[in-house]
């Protein structure tokens, strides 16, 4: 994942430690950038399917030079 605020690249597993101090972290699906704390959501299975579908659709519409 790439943080949209500070540009730091990280894996969702790396983002666990800044969340440990939050009382909601066990039930919370948000992940925080280890560098600046900005919150992001890892994509769910449905979101991944949607991405595949949309990528296919948008790529199909692209006109090759």
């Amino acid at each position, binding site marked *: 994942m790439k943080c949209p605020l500070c540009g730091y690249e990280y894996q969702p597993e790396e983002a666990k430690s*800044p969340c440990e101090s939050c009382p909601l972290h066990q039930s919370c699906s948000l992940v925080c950038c280890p560098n600046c704390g*900005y919150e992001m959501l890892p*994509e769910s299975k449905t979101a991944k399917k949607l991405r595949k579908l949309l990528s296919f659709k948008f790529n199909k519409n692209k006109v090759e030079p």
Partner: protein
Amino acid sequence: MMNEQNLEMNKINVSASSQTRKKKKHAKIVIVGSPNVGKSVLFNALTGAYVTVSNYPGTTVELSNGKGRLNSISLNIIDTPGMYRLLPITEEERVARNVLINESPDVVIHVVDAKNLNRMLPMTLQLKNAGLPVFLVINMMDEADRLSIKIDPAQIEHILQIPVVTTALARNRGIKELKKRLSDFLQSETRFSDNHRSVEIPYPPLIKKAIQTISSLLKSRYALSANMLAYLFLLGDKEVWKMIEGKEPDSVFQQIKETREKVKAAYHVGLDLEIAKSERALTDQILKKAVKSSAEKTTTPTGFLDRLFLSPYTGFPIIILVLYLFYLFVGVLGAQTIVDFLEISVFGQYINPLVNKLLVSWVPWQPIRDLFGGEYGIITLGIRYAIAIILPIVGTFFLAFSFIEDSGYLPRLALLVDRFFKKIGLNGRAVLPIVLGFGCDTMATVVTRTLETKRERIISTLLLTLAIPCSAQLGVLLAMASTNPKVLWVWIGIVLMIFFLIGFLSSKLMPGVRPSFYIELPPLRFPRPANILVKTYTRMEWYFKEVLPFFVLASVLLWLGQLTGLFEIIVNGMKPLMSWMGLPGDTAVAFIFGFFRRDYGAAGLYDLRGILTGNQLLIAITVMTLFVPCIAQFAVTIKERGIKTALGMFFFVMLFAFGTGIVLHKLFAFTGIVL
């Protein structure tokens, strides 16, 4: 530019002296690096079963100490807390730095993340220039491979003249090679740096001269190199300042101080920023030679737009334009057109009457009918709030927010706001938790721990509690305010004014402490539609998974409260307060909702929009913005700042929020202003 001659001279020194040294039997190794780069994994790989964890003297920061063996050398290994650079900000960084100064390590292993070399290599330069025997471990190579980042460690090794190994420690990759290189490095006593080995960082001439002047004036013995002490002194490191003051004669210390003052005066915008830029420039040069990344090709120059976004003259009008577009998209399209359709036509005309009709026909018990239907029923209130009010508002809000996020505007906004913060006297670094607060105040409160002093942490927490609405609350309040444009702009003005007031008061509380804030600016780009849609979908899916059960639960609690009469007692108890603010008694319900979740409270107010006048709307949304934090944020505040401070803030915010509502009502009554 690198000083090639120095490097060549260094090579000669390395080979000459290595032949004259004896074999080493014991070695002390200190592992340093940013948080989450794999320091502890390396520590575990190098140590055996005997590991002790203890607090660093005088602090609550934990240090891990372990024993290990590498060929014939017995190792004492210290794992330090995460640090980003040698100039410490947090207590953890201070402890890590003090370990480097006080422990006289034989090797300092700097672990860096292969994906973020550009951010982490500047600390390698600082460690090297501090005269420490640095051993660089580029970790997480597996993840870099996945991102098609190709790193040439030999090139970095050649330029920096330190051992460089690449690893994927979490996957046990590269540990054998690391141990071999470490053993060789420990046997080579030339690892201790001298002036020939320091890397020449392209500082501006004035800074370079100041470092030279200060370092030449330092005559006592120190654990760090004179150049590094001069560097840290220039940056205002308090501990280094005290150390030099204690060891050097007064006349010399005066000269050192004067040299610093001259340079500081020349770089009034930020000496630390100028130094960081120079380190970054050298890092970029190194990475240009040693790293190949497919991502680099997509970078486009956006200098002109950057200037527009970052200049206060054009940046603030752009913020207003962005807000106006938000108003049109979220406030008009989401909150008016779509909400009206779903709430009035779909729920008002079809779903709610149908539910109530079915309940009357099939359920003979009134309390059960009230649980699902009626005024506060699970379907007629909970589901209606979630589907007809929250869904279109957060949907349009998240869509617009994802666009802004992917465009690269957010870090530019943070930089612009930082300038504004400084003008009102706030610490530049506080901008980060404040900006994060617009996402979720709970996590932002956790991030305030990265601030330097207790005062800064308390003031930022207070600002987050008081004047920063979270994204969901902001969406609903923005949508509400959008029903009356005059209310929208006055509301924004009032919240900004309160922010300004708190900022002004805080500057009186902590004068003179204004360290620079800098953040990487990714290139501006036009967001990809597929990305935006997936992000919006992900956020909405998460939001509804989280919010829908809560809305149902809140409806059940309200039903129970109604059944027992408790709810009516609370509402009646709050009615006088509502009347002092000139609000209808029913508004109390929304404020009760708001304590559970800020957005639920905002949705409660939204439900009353038809009966509120412009003035009442403004008072209600202003009080709701300033109103107490939600339960989660309150719990974090207790954990981070302690129960006394958290309760103090809670009561202050309650008084301030309702006090503002009363003052606004009296002001409207006195002046006769009608919005």
